[in-house]
């Protein structure tokens, strides 16, 4: 992969959930290697759908999506192999509830990447330490707090050595006092140069690490701008209205 090649490339992506409901409308977006992009917009605007399409968890109706140069929107694409390269973190954590924390981190490494048990455990422990969950490896997800679960979910994604990470409102389901412990992990990831696409309304996080902001409304990418520009001078009325609602005055 050359540095010039974008990590994600969305070319005129359209998606209909039903013949009468178009959820994505002609979405175009390019995310460079090492870039951090925050996606925001009103509820129901299609943010989750957009990033699920980027990881082929949802199919597009037409248009093309390329991840590190490989097209995920052709029928020929080996979707599991493509998905394995991109990490994904969900609003509701989605740790495997019947597995211990350690098993959660090992299952993909062993069954998808074919790593040995020892190598998988070593990597898992390293990552758990990194996200501050060392010592809980033997517990089940239900025994951890939301913030801890979400950090484990990040570690599980990182265990696959992803080339990029997608986050869908990773802190929306968390109690306020746990939001920062998750954001801190994400900030450090961003600072290490991980390519990230983050759906979030945490504008503090966006200001701090986002290179660009993507503003969506009603299935359209309405505005894409460097974060300083976006916050200081949103170009569209829709973005201004949205910002005035979510930012404290």
């Amino acid at each position, binding site marked *: 992969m050359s540095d010039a090649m974008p990590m994600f490339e969305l070319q005129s992506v359209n998606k209909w959930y039903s013949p009468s409901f178009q959820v994505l409308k002609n979405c175009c977006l390019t995310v460079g290697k090492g870039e951090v992009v925050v996606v925001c917009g009103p509820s129901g605007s299609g943010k989750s759908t957009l990033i699920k399409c980027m990881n082929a968890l949802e199919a597009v109706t037409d248009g093309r999506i390329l991840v590190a140069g490989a097209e995920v929107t052709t029928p020929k694409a080996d979707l599991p192999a493509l998905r394995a390269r991109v990490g994904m973190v969900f609003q509701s954590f989605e740790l*495997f*509830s*019947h597995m211990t924390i350690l098993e959660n981190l090992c299952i993909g490494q062993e069954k998808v990447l074919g790593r040995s048990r020892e190598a998988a455990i070593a990597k898992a422990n390293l990552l758990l330490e990194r996200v501050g969950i060392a010592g809980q490896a033997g517990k089940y997800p239900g025994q951890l707090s939301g913030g801890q679960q979400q950090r484990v979910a990040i570690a599980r994604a990182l265990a696959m050595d992803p080339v990029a990470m997608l986050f869908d409102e990773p802190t929306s389901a968390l109690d306020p006092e746990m939001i920062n412990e998750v954001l801190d992990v994400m900030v450090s990831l961003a600072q290490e140069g991980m390519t990230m696409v983050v759906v979030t309304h945490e504008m503090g996080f966006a200001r701090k690490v986002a290179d660009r902001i993507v503003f969506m409304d009603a299935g359209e990418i309405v505005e894409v701008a460097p974060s300083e520009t976006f916050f200081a001078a949103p170009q569209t009325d829709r973005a201004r209205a949205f910002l005035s609602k979510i930012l404290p005055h």
Partner: protein
Amino acid sequence: MKGWNWQGFFEYLTNTYLFEGALVTLGLTAFSMTAGLILGFFIAVLRMSRFRILSTIASLYIWLFRGTPLLVQLIIIYTGLPQVGIKLSVIQSTLLGLALCEAAYLSEIVRAGITSVPRGQVNAARAIGMREAQIMRYVIMPQALRLIIPPLGNSVNSVLKTTSIASIISMEELLRRTQVLIQEKFLVLELFVVAAIYYLIMTTAWEFVQRRIEARLGKAYGQSAMTGL
């Protein structure tokens, strides 16, 4: 009035012919459950298929086998099929009938278990690159089992008793053997009570096993996981 014959009763309670009949009943139950589960799993998967034809075929199968008595199914298989050139022995007919019928019931249990697994778990498994078969094996089935095990245990109890229907095509399980003895000795009440006791022993023993399994499962999944977070 002959009254109750205690001596005859105790004799039959320890009769090896009947005891073997009970073993056959156990064997039929184990087979029906195993074959029914395997077949039922595939029917459940078909039933949930995106492809309309496949799910319709599965629905028809379930409709047919749950909508008709096992008694009728067995008679059709054993007595009716030879008419179109398919001759099956008593034991073949019994095994086939029980497996096909149980599969219909068990597939619904399996399906309920599978659909109980939150969609997000599948997405999470896909997101780390797992393939559909791996997701089924490592993520969906283990979680579905939590929900499946209790009704499955109840199915074992009911199949233990249902196997007695095979006596109608002279399958030599517990009930059939009881009837054979009755024709020889005419101790009707004593023999049926003995048969009832055998069934009770088997269902009670199973209940004990089932409780052990459920307790172990509870531990394995961790308390919080059992209660669904």
